[in-house]
């Protein structure tokens, strides 16, 4: 198989935007706007509700197809399979058969996820455990050029060879379908809900396909539930100016967040790519910039997805609620990537026993849940450690909470504004430190960064930009959080004359366009 530069590769290594397809439609590109405008116009011109659903299914398929034709068919095929399995599950009362169908659905979905996302990671880790080295395999293609087609795991070969076996383990350049983690979770939640009779199986195939393939949420969520989305596919959509305005507003906010994220990347990327070249100050700054970037990037994407969906008459659930204002890690996970945290709560943590048990039992469940949550983000040790650290922080918080409950004076002190500020700062600091693991680099890069953060090191390479712009943008984030949480700001919004509001939106868009940096950055969460 030829390495396809359109997609992110197995091993969870996110690729920059230019490695994606030429026609890749990131929400912050002109190509997406053209695509969306076309779909939007046609959608609202069509007088038939069914035709609108067909249009959205077709557009969503094209959206994915523009990245990879083969994988668009794969996603479609698994969607049809889930539809049929759920229908079969719904039509029978035989519990064993229902269970079998559920397991088949989970097996295929998780199997595909594991194959594409985790197989190379698993083989690579196994090989490293046996001390092997990778050797590139090359072959001459029809174009006469030499291509790398895979990597032989000499370590495993040597290990098995010593036992008289001659295996041929090869790491292939597997292409990870964009958003596979998202739509796999959506499909699993749907079949589980049908199995547990929380919802009825969708009878209409296009509606079901729209639920999984709907382009605003297809590649990076929010992870939608059948119970939320499927009823919307049956409702007749009417043009609504209020909804359009809301959609545009949310989309613009998301776009501006993405711009901030990309600008934060100017401070973060050089350091994360070459940690050995940067000293203590630059590394701290980069880690801080990354915390800002990942929030603005992912919540920006989500806002653009929610805005796009609104303009087409669909409502997606809120995925972020000012997570950096959380006062503890538990609260952070109720505010950060809400659709994922509720998913793993409902389909992993609770089935494991949840909080119904002793504190060590709950701690075990939290650790398992968060470790799998970490692995969900990417196939690398960095993400696993990130998940383990969050699990450990959640456990610590639970223990500390139990400790504080019986100490009213300490509890009272923590509830004061100073105590609250301390808790917020500590939570942010812990989350920020964990983000250091949350990147495509190696574990040794992360360790180098920690070493540089906690020992006085001098940079051997200057930063491209002075720090000032980072702090200005941070101030913008702080003000936006204040505005977002202030009832007075909401009142002001509703009192602002419509023309002024329109002009403010135009100004926001224009400022965002001017501030966009040179690099064409993909959304970070496209890789998960």
């Amino acid at each position, binding site marked *: 198989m030829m390495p396809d530069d359109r997609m992110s590769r197995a091993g969870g290594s996110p690729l920059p935007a230019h490695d994606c397809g030429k026609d890749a439609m990131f929400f912050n590109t002109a190509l997406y706007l053209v695509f969306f405008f076309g779909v939007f116009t046609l959608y609202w011109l069509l007088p038939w509700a069914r035709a609108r659903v067909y249009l959205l299914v077709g557009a969503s398929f094209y959206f994915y197809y523009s990245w990879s034709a083969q994988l668009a068919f794969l996603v479609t095929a698994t969607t049809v399979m889930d539809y049929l399995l759920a229908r079969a599950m719904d039509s029978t009362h035989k519990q064993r058969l229902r269970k079998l169908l559920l397991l088949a659905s989970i097996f295929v979905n998780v199997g595909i996820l594991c194959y594409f996302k985790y197989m190379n990671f698993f083989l690579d880790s196994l090989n490293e455990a046996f001390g092997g080295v990778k050797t590139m395999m090359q072959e001459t293609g029809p174009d006469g050029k030499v291509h790398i087609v895979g990597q032989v795991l000499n370590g495993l070969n040597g290990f098995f060879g010593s036992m008289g076996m001659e295996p041929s383990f090869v790491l292939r350049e597997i292409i990870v379908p964009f958003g596979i983690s998202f739509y796999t979770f959506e499909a699993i939640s749907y079949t589980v809900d049908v199995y547990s009779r929380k919802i009825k199986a969708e009878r209409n195939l296009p509606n079901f396909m729209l639920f999984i393939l709907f382009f605003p949420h297809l590649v990076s969520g929010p992870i939608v539930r059948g119970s939320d989305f499927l009823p919307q596919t049956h409702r007749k959509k009417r043009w*609504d100016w209020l909804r359009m305005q809301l959609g545009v507003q949310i989309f613009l906010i998301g776009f501006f967040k993405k711009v901030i994220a990309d600008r934060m990347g100017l401070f973060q990327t050089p350091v994360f790519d070459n940690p050995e070249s940067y000293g203590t100050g630059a590394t701290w700054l980069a880690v801080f910039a990354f915390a800002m970037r990942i929030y603005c990037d992912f919540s920006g994407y989500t806002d653009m997805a929610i805005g796009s969906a609104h303009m087409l008459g669909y409502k997606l659930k809120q995925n972020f609620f000012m997570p950096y204002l959380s006062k503890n890690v538990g609260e952070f996970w109720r505010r950060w990537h809400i659709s994922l945290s509720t998913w793993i709560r409902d389909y992993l943590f609770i089935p494991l026993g949840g909080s119904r048990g002793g504190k060590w039992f709950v701690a075990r469940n939290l650790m398992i849940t968060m470790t799998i949550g970490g692995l969900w983000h990417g196939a690398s040790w960095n993400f696993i450690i990130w998940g383990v650290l969050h699990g450990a922080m959640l456990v610590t918080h639970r223990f500390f909470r139990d400790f504080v409950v019986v100490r009213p004076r300490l509890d009272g002190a923590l509830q004061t504004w100073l105590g609250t500020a301390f808790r917020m700062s500590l939570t942010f600091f812990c989350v920020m430190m964990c983000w250091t693991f949350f990147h495509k680099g190696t574990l040794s890069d992360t360790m180098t960064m920690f070493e540089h953060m906690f020992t006085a090191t001098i940079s051997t390479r200057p930063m491209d*930009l002075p720090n000032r*712009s980072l702090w200005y943008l941070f101030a913008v984030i702080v003000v936006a959080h204040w505005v977002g949480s202030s009832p007075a700001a909401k009142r002001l919004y509703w009192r602002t004359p*419509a023309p002024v509001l*329109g002009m403010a939106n135009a100004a926001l868009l224009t400022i965002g*366009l001017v501030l966009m940096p040179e690099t064409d950055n993909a959304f970070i969460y496209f890789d998960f």
Partner: protein
Amino acid sequence: MSKPSSLRRRQRRARQSFISLAVSLIVLHLGLLIACEYVPRLRDPLFGDKQHLFAMRCENVSNPTVVLMIGSSRTGMGFHGLHIEKVLQPELQRPLIAFNFGVPAAGPMTHLIYLRRLLKEGQRPDLLFVEVLPSMFVEQKEGPLERNWFAADRFRGYEFAMVSRYGLDAAKYAPDWWRTFWNPWFGLRFQLLARIAPGWVPWKVRYDWGRGADAAGWSTAMTPTVTRESYLRGLTQATAEYQPILQDLHIGGHAVQALHDIIAIARDEGIPIRLVLMPEGTDFRRMYLPHVQARIDVFLKDLGVEVIDARRWLNDDQFTDGHHMLRSGAERFSEQLGREVILPFFKKSR
């Protein structure tokens, strides 16, 4: 069932704000496009900043004699107009303006466009110097070497169409240019942002080089002095950039045509023109092998214009990297150019 009045009011408000957004965007878009036509600094600050300075100088001096030098960053850091004016003014006994129009990475195509723009604005010099950077005239099938630094967004539509005739792959650069038309706030964002907040723009996409120039367009080197180490570092970088081209330089192609056209325009306009080979350090000059040097000599001779070969005018310690001058180098080069070329020219023409 009719909608409640508050809902109707909200719907109306939403529609109005939507219309206002669309109208505002159109106004902003058209406003910038129109402004770009009248304020060159918006689209091409590298040109616009210098043109503004040039116009200011010409306005403040009555009936001046104008010497203009067009070139690359070598010219930008080397042609010290104010120093030339100080040295020559007493002897010329009439107002003199010596202006530096050196712009980083500019080659014959850019020189040609800049000359056309200046003439269109009525900014006509009495003596024109044009830098000849031999590597820019390398014949390559991909097009003129200048393509490597060519930024389509800096040029107007007809200018872009014009440079396309000089071997530039127009299809490659056209999307960049059209972006400045369909989405000018995005397409021209580095130009705009570098003007408002230069610290927000990485060096490689800064277009505000001309802002640091003195009143005569001269820009000093980043460092006032260089150590042996930093000189060698700069020289190593320069060698890496130039040697692959200079080791077997074949002169030809569209860049040569552009230079011919510059000469033709100057002749048509009656502007005396001189070509200048800018000073280079000993180590830099070693990159010109004898057979390459012979080709350059033939090329320059065939142009039929007086060429000032200033390559050996300075010592090595007057460069930052073997070809960009320090202040001391710029002063010496400019003084020698003034005394040996400019002064005799004007004395003769008087």
